[in-house]
């Protein structure tokens, strides 16, 4: 044990010489939704729009077309290695996807500057909290490593309809802390200058959310 550690622990114990009691934590706050799936979904859409994200509701039949529209004609975009290719439009001469292997130190991954040069990134997501309008990425193979959803300026994020929950406690239960977690609530923003909100500082300035049914 380092000297500093031993010393600090000694101090902490001395400061707690009065043995304060640890109360039992009362978790009487809401932990399960009582709303219908329909209401919860409507709430998520409302919150996302409030954050100035764009929201689209698609099915397996329409999703590729939607992504094609959002990408525009000339786009090079990155996807994580586990993304369902059925969601994507056909590549064309001007538009094609690049697969990131998920390990920044190995071949098959894009460098930070390459990520800066692509036009967009398309990923899935683990769980979305309606009450706060928050999408959780948990570094799965369908979401990729953190850099790919950070550096490109345009993030198209698929939210499978069945992954929508109402409450934060319901969301926290569905993520795995052993992998990195990124919670996204709208595009980045700052209110640092005279408290005027400006969307898009360092993260992706455009966030398109596609709620996907029936996959």
């Amino acid at each position, binding site marked *: 044990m*380092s000297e*500093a550690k031993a010393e*600090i*622990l000694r*101090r*902490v*114990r*001395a*400061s*707690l010489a*009065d*043995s*304060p*009691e*640890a*109360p039992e*934590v*009362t*978790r*009487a*706050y*809401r932990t399960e939704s009582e709303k219908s799936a329909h209401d919860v979904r409507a709430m998520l859409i409302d919150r996302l729009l409030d*954050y100035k994200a764009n929201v689209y509701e698609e099915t397996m039949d329409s999703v590729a077309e939607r992504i094609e529209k959002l990408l525009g004609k000339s786009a090079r975009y990155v996807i994580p290695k586990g993304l369902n290719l059925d969601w994507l439009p056909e590549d064309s001469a001007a538009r094609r996807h690049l697969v990131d292997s*998920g*390990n920044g*130190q*190995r071949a098959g991954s894009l460098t*930070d*500057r390459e990520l*800066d040069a692509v036009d967009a990134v398309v990923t899935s997501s683990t769980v979305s909290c309606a*009450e*706060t*309008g*928050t999408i959780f990425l948990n*570094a799965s193979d369908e979401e990729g*490593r*953190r*850099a790919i959803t*950070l550096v490109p300026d345009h993030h198209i994020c698929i939210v499978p309809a069945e992954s929508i929950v109402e409450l*934060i406690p319901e969301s*926290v239960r569905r993520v795995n*802390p*052993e992998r*990195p*977690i990124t*919670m*996204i*609530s*709208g595009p*980045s*923003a*700052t209110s*640092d*200058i*005279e*408290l*005027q909100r400006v969307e*898009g*500082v*360092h993260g992706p300035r455009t966030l398109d959310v596609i709620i996907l049914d029936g996959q």
Partner: protein
Amino acid sequence: MTVTQLGMPKVFHGTGNIAAEESFTSFAGRELKNEQLRANLGFATHTIRDKRAKVVGELPDWELLRTAGSEIKQDVMARLPELLEQFEKNFTERGGKVHWARDADEANQIALDIIREQQAEEVIKIKSMATQETGLNEYLEENGVSAVETDLAEEIVQLGEDKPSHILVPAIHRNRSEIRDIFLKKMPHIDKDISDNPAELAEASRHHLREKFFRNKVAISGANFGVADSGTLSIVESEGNGRMCLTLPDTLISFMGIEKLVPTFQDLEVFLQLLPRSSTGERMNPYTSMWSGVTPGDGPQNLHVILMDNGRTAALADQVGRQALHCIRCSACMNVCPVYERAGGHAYGSVYPGPIGAILSPLLTGVEAEENNSLPYASSLCGACYEACPVKINIPDVLVHLRGKDVDAKHGKGEEGNKRQAPDQMDAIMGGAKAMFSNSTLLSIAERGLPAGGLAAGRDHKISWLPGLIGGWTKYRDIPEPPKQAFRHWWKKNKKNGPKQRAASDRVDVDALIAKNSGLAEELHRRHAGEAQEEREEAQEQAAELKKEQRREPDMVRREEDLLKGQDDSSNGTTGEGTSSQEGND
């Protein structure tokens, strides 16, 4: 590091930017004259306050979350040694390295060693109270490493070469045209025709920093929460500069106070709801990042966390004050504080401003630290901070407690054979104040009795000097005559039902605040001495005397002491002065 004997086990106080360079009253005096700062702070605090009230009102279980938050934090304090070791074990097992720092210097030194190992001359930083507390940037600068702040507000503060004025909106004292001027001067590649539109200024910052994110190999952060059972660290932010710093560099060094732990990953469900709503008044902040040790191929592979004491164990030793360590740095207490709004964040000197700073800073440094012993007086004890606090820290209680400690310190309590000095005015105040604050009827009567303070006003109905708690304010600017209605009555009448919510247009009435404080003084005068007329004459004499001794702040209350002492014991009119000199802060 100062060591103070309290008749109990030794406690080790913190160092760094938690001690004011001058007293609250003296700085507030200058700051009060800064109209820009006051206007901006007023705007900021009102805007955030209203947003907060709205999003807090949305949650039917807000009070239950507050209770859980408070209980979790009490549990953390009670089991701190065990939880610290558990956190260390989990973070280490997952490839991170845990360092321990007794004080600010040690923490800075650890960070410098890691930076040198990486041979970096520049590091990127996420806004962090902990590194402001240790003075890391200045320390690195002295050692040839430049630390680049990447949060827009911090960047403005850094480029403008001044100090943050608010935990949350550190550059709130700058307006857009000042920011434009700073950028034009300090950003080499900036478009010279840039306007002062906030969107354009934010864009300039994006370009300026992007290159730095790609180039730098070492980043430094604080931490909002550390989770013992999963070894997770978490950063809550808005702009994405945090994600950049936490994701792109190879090496990440996070400074974390030992009190920032929560026991379980599940506990985050409480704080992720409490923090953003209390802080920026949003349902959720744009980005929150969490990482539990190293993830191969994703993010920094060389991960460090520095667990910092720096006075926290001293605060923990104070049974009343230890709750200050529950603070999650949301700044809600600042946004509802009438004193903060008028005096500005800089006046508190320490990096921890506002009501929480008024208790946390002296707890970290010890109330004996002369520079911080005026802080416990920087409050009107109106209780708004307590009601706003998401983890229910009873700031007014701790303030009264620390004032009591300050009095003890002044009396050299504990020194053997040292006959207690004649009870000074402070004792009278504290005695009186305790009685009054514990008895709201008495306080109400005292306040209603207060319009008598109008007697001190001259013919122009301006009061240029008032004795008592408010004396420290009137020294700097003439204040209008107190209104007929005392602050608490005004407050009661004007607050809506439910949690403290005031409309933006409902400006805090500083006159009413003054009335409240001067009412307190008046009541004490009546209780402890004779006649109001005599008091005022004496007050005037004292004012003249004090003017000669401007240097000897903090005197908001000591002036009151002197007054009362004159009434209590006519023979010791100068003893109080003697007491003050012993405490002379030069």
